[in-house]
């Protein structure tokens, strides 16, 4: 075999996916994932750098060349074990991480050609493990795997508030370090934004359930229907014997635009639209009880990943036309390129450099249209992106029966209002030490979107990793 020549010739392997015309009318996952053969072929593209850049690009520092080498050899069990040393949610991360701005961005192959498809390979291993049942551990009996990776019990109890990506990471890391971990979730099902926010077609809920089940098998306890700050306070958690509390409650506050007509029926926050559809399964109404307006003519304001998720949900709910209206240009759109690409294939229309002025409704209070104005780009603002400036006289009206406002989400004040000794910044986000995640309240850590504002799953997981180390040190050594 002429290894060298072969390496140069193999192109980055595409992942087969559902045809746009088909998938736009179902909720099944868009890409099918690699076959073992394709995965091994893709893995063979990796040149196993001595100083791998990809690892520095990963917020949780997975041994990327390590797991890829094992795929190449066909040792999938070894590969997934390698990932799980650093990341207990590979099926999630392989799907929703923005690899193009992280590990794959710094892959050496990307300098001249296309980087190794690290995310697809990660996903492959996680899916392989689930389908092989290798991830399952017999009930009541720790497997060789968990015995080997779990450290002796410390008897220290940790409360994790919020079961989203950062909370699950903290819980997973600390259970492996031998602590007694309980996760509190406000909704009826654990998973946080992975359940209520990211749609089924992008992250099947069975996968989240499987990752949560794996946590349970490791010994993590989950308490749902618990709103910390309402059902129980942070101080009461300490009274109950928890030695440390991690707050990872996410970005659970919808941002509205404060324009006239926003309370018309048919105007949704992205949080509401997605929660109805994902958590409550309104797309299966009336089999499921929760309704959602199945608009024929939908507009979505904003151009981040959440906006793409909302718009693509609208298509699957049966819309004839779905328009993304964004006040800046294509270059500034914050969504992943892959998401934008998938959306375009499915028929989303992009109306750039336009912003809404007011919504228009009928006598029943139902949305019938929106008045917008055109924008042009001016000087860069604080975010470094060019500021959109309204063009005078460019106002226009357009019809719509559903609007989804997806211009970001803020910090939900429920827990922090009830815990006044946790200091906040002026946006209501918790102030936490960058290296450790320590808040101003002793024994309390915070991380993820409640600290940073709305960001990505993997950044929240990276924060969770740091926090877990800090909590461990505290429980063993002290504050």
């Amino acid at each position, binding site marked *: 075999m002429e290894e060298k020549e072969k390496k140069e010739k193999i192109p980055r392997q595409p992942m087969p996916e559902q045809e746009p015309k088909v998938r736009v009318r179902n909720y099944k996952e868009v890409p099918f994932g690699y076959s073992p053969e394709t995965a091994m072929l893709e893995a063979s593209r990796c040149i196993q750098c001595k100083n791998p850049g990809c690892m520095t690009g990963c917020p949780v520092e997975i041994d990327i060349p390590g797991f890829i080498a094992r795929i190449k050899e066909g040792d999938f069990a070894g590969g997934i074990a390698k990932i799980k040393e650093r990341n207990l949610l590979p099926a999630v991360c392989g799907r929703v991480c923005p690899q193009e701005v992280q590990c794959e961005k710094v892959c050496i192959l990307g300098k001249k050609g296309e980087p190794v498809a690290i995310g697809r390979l990660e996903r492959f291993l996680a899916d392989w493990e689930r389908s092989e049942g290798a991830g399952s551990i017999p009930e009541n009996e720790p497997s060789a795997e968990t015995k080997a990776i779990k450290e002796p019990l410390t008897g220290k109890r940790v409360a994790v508030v919020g079961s989203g990506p950062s909370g699950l990471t903290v819980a997973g890391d600390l259970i492996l370090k031998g602590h007694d971990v309980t996760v509190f979730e406000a909704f009826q099902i654990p998973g946080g934004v992975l359940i209520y926010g990211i749609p089924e077609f992008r992250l099947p809920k069975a996968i989240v359930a499987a990752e949560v089940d794996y946590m349970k098998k490791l010994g993590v306890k989950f308490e749902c*229907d618990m*709103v910390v700050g309402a059902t129980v306070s942070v101080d009461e958690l300490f009274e109950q014997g928890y030695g440390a509390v991690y707050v990872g409650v996410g970005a659970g506050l919808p941002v*509205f635009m404060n324009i006239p007509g926003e309370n018309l029926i048919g105007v949704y926050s992205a949080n509401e639209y997605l929660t109805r559809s994902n958590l*409550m399964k309104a797309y299966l109404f009336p089999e499921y009880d929760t309704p959602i307006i199945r608009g024929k003519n939908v507009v979505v304001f904003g151009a981040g990943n959440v906006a793409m998720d909302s718009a693509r949900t609208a298509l699957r709910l049966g819309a004839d036309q779905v328009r993304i209206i964004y006040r800046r240009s294509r270059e500034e759109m914050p969504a992943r390129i892959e998401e934008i690409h998938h959306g375009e294939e499915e028929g989303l229309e992009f109306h750039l450099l336009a912003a809404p002025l007011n919504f228009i409704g009928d006598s029943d209070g139902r949305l019938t249209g929106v008045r917008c104005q055109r924008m042009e780009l001016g000087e860069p603002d604080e975010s470094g992106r060019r500021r959109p400036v309204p063009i005078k006289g460019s106002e226009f009206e357009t019809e719509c029966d559903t609007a989804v406002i997806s211009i970001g989400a803020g910090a*939900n004040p429920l827990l922090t209002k009830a815990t006044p000794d946790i200091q906040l910044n002026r946006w209501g986000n918790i102030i936490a030490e960058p290296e450790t995640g320590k808040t101003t309240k002793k024994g309390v850590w915070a991380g993820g979107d409640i600290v940073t504002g709305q960001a990505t799953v993997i950044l929240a997981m990276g924060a969770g990793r740091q926090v877990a180390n800090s909590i461990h040190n505290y429980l063993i050594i002290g504050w």
Partner: protein
Amino acid sequence: MYKILAKEELVPNIHLINVEAPAVAKKAQPGQFVIITVDEKGERIPLTVADWDREKGFITIVFMEVGTTTQRLALLNAGDSLYSLVGPLGIPTHIEKFGTVVCVGGCYGIAAMMPIARAMKEAGNKVISVIEGRSKYLLFWEEELKRVSDQLFVTVGDGSHAAERWIPDQVKQIVDSGGKIDLVVAFGCTFMMKLTSETTKPLGIKTVVHLSSIMVDGTGMCGCCRVSVGGETRFACVDGPEFDGHEVDWDVLLSRQRGYQDEEIQSLQEWESRQWSRT
């Protein structure tokens, strides 16, 4: 989990259930609510906590059958369990010594008013309770309310029991007959609270109402329950449910409450037809 310990149909279509929920029972305050889900496929709906037993660890909920969720809830019996129950949510009713407080409760709101009247009485207020039903057979808890009130007025729309009048008329009559009212607290259907607020506004009587908007999470996360109060958008779940009745934009609230009327009918028909096929 969330086992129904007792169930009673107070009057036709209005049911009482005691549900095991120790953590919620420990914390519940007058005016707060819980969000319940009947089963895995169910909708999350807010229901006011009508009472609680902190020692025995249960809460009392009184609800009216109006849609799919409440009909299904009404079919559960003692021994059955709810799929999910979370709370207590919302800001508790503001209780202090105001002077004379008129507590008005209509329909299922009579039950929700009970702990408020009791707390107002304990705070040293003169409590006048006014309850309303369409007809005599829809009234309940008269005796219970009498015990925590200095005075109780009963109003029915059809004149079958007491005076043929509605709550707002009764409030006006109290004032007309020389009574001084410092605060009106209203709990019940939106229309009654709207009319009560419209009656007290020109009289200059501060009136607080408890709004029941459609909710999903109940923790301020989705904004579904938003209402317009004093020209500002507020979330009934975390900023309320208690608001100044004179500042509420009732038209927006009434319209948003009808937001899923078609779907509600469809859901109910679907569910009922599934019931028929079972028998």
